[in-house]
């Protein structure tokens, strides 16, 4: 199994623990990754506010690079995944638009032929890798640990662009994965809501209120940690949890795991190697509960 790897900006920026953790578990899983060093930012939906065609063109450029490698794209960020899926949906459903975008790419000698089907690691594991194969590699199941899923908006909406109709299992993929890891799923309505990150610099109060709501909801349900396939959600839920706690006037202390970290822990990889010490919220109580050495 080999993928054109699209790590996104945040896994190499604000969440530098994510990139190595993802590479590490893929290596152990036997998933080969080939990077596309020249692939740009997806635009994250922000650039698209200014100029959607520009955003779609940048993504078409990445798709063309993967086509040239002859590899499917794998992402590790809900936002990257969603923005790519939305761009791909528009490009695939409008040949005239695709031609216009390709006219911009021509100077660099690139052309997007329309064959890309980018997939988040979460989908790759369930749809391509296979639950049975993954299960055999879970050598240290997370029994007794209660994990709350947090998807990130762009991995669940809009359903049409994300191909949810053809792949209905995607809408419960994170719960499924938590079960495969041997942990107990903490279910709550906030799992598909917004973490608040996109408005952090615009309306911090509201952004942080969202962090407080979700982390406190799962705390009240007895969760030991949250798991997210989105590093932007991680930045807010983890990095701004102290502020959320102050604003809500309640202590929280809810560790937030990146998806590859949760998988890595269940594969017996040490918390240290997975970069848990880099988190803002202390992960020590979780590590103790897991009964492994930090």
């Amino acid at each position, binding site marked *: 199994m080999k993928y054109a790897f699209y790590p996104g*900006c*945040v896994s190499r*920026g*604000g*969440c*530098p*623990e994510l990139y190595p953790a993802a590479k590490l578990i893929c290596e152990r899983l036997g998933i080969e990754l080939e990077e596309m*060093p*020249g*692939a*740009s*930012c997806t*635009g*994250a*939906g*922000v*650039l*698209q*506010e*200014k*100029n*959607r*065609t*520009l955003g779609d*063109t*940048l993504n078409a*450029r990445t798709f063309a690079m993967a086509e040239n490698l002859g590899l499917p794209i794998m992402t590790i960020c809900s936002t990257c995944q969603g923005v790519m899926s939305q761009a791909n949906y*528009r490009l695939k459903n409008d040949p005239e638009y695709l031609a216009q975008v390709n006219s*911009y*790419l021509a*100077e*660099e000698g690139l052309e997007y032929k329309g064959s890309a089907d980018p997939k988040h690691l979460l989908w790759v594991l369930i749809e391509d890798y296979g639950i049975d194969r993954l299960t055999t590699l879970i050598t240290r199941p997370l029994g007794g640990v209660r994990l709350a899923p947090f998807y990130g*908006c*762009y991995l669940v*909406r*809009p*359903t049409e662009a994300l191909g949810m109709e053809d792949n209905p299992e995607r809408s419960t993929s994170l719960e499924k994965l938590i079960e495969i890891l041997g942990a107990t799923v903490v279910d709550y*309505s906030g799992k598909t*809501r*917004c973490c*608040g990150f*996109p*408005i952090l*610099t*615009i*309306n*911090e109060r*509201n*952004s942080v*209120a*969202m962090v407080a*709501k979700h982390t406190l909801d799962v705390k009240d349900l007895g969760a030991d940690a949250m798991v997210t396939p989105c590093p932007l959600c991680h930045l807010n839920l983890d*990095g*701004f949890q*102290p*502020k959320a706690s102050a604003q809500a006037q309640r202590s929280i202390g809810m560790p937030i795991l990146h998806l590859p970290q949760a998988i890595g822990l269940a594969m017996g990889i040490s918390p240290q190697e997975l970069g848990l*010490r*880099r*988190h*803002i919220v202390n992960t020590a109580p979780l590590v103790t509960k897991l009964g492994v050495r930090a």
Partner: protein
Amino acid sequence: MDLTLRVRRFDPDSDNPEPYWQDFSVTVEDNATVLDALIKVREDVDGTLSLRCSCRSSICGSCAMRINGHATLACKAQARDSLGDDNVIVVEPAGVMHVLKDLVVDFDLFWDKIMAVEPYLQPQGPEPEGEYIASNESMLHLSGVTACIMCGACVSDCTVLEVDPTFMGPAALAKAYRFTADPRDGDEEGHSEDRLRMLSEASGMWDCTRCFECVQVCPKGVAPMDRIMSLRDQALAAGMDKNYGARHVQAFSDLVEHSGWLDELRIVPMTMGLGNVPALLNVMPEALRALSHGKLPPLVHPELPGAENIRNLFEKVEQGGKEPEGHH
């Protein structure tokens, strides 16, 4: 078809006015909607169950409520497609708005927001001699947003309204767009600057998180969030760029244009404004905490190989003209 409706109930006049769950098992036709099932409960099982409905065909907008956790019209949701485990359908009142009784919510919050955007044409130029002429195209592209039936589904599931009731919200902002994009509104060119200025203020267009909830739940394809993005586009084009939201978009775009990927270290001060000491001091604790955990993005942000190609695309596409408004 046998099914169970698990209904969130509330009676303000009871001795113990607390919301509670009640299960109703009913048999309905195979092609019944969730509304049909609820009406059957009200008629055959418990006449005290309160809900709103009128047209039963997705026209009047009365019956919006949460079905299996997401807002929708009960008369549009097929019961068969809504069945969960053990043939249970979970029914709750719409979110955000205050519950009056059972599935009936108080729409004052909804209407106050709609009224706040002054939902009527306000032409500013000299009056034309005959009628106001609007081209077919300009009205056709508004047909999506005028399809709104004011059901409140988008308001119910808005992630911002959930934490901040002062936000204008998706329905009102989409309604505002219906006027800013109408060639008859505003000055002779059809620019509605006063509206855009008002909508750019706090609690307005820039407070949307782009979470897609409203796009997903709208039963009429209005796609309120897309309209909010078009409002932002209009505001930027009108030069209203002196707020955090507009500066964030500009900074993001500039940074990606420069290096090909996002420089997370620089986007915060660029959005806040370099001279904005109080705002920068406010994020200091988070920045220092990140630094102490080795989480701060690299100080030197290298540009991607081939970044000149990306800069080139920015130039070419931005010159090549944007997509027509409302294109999605």
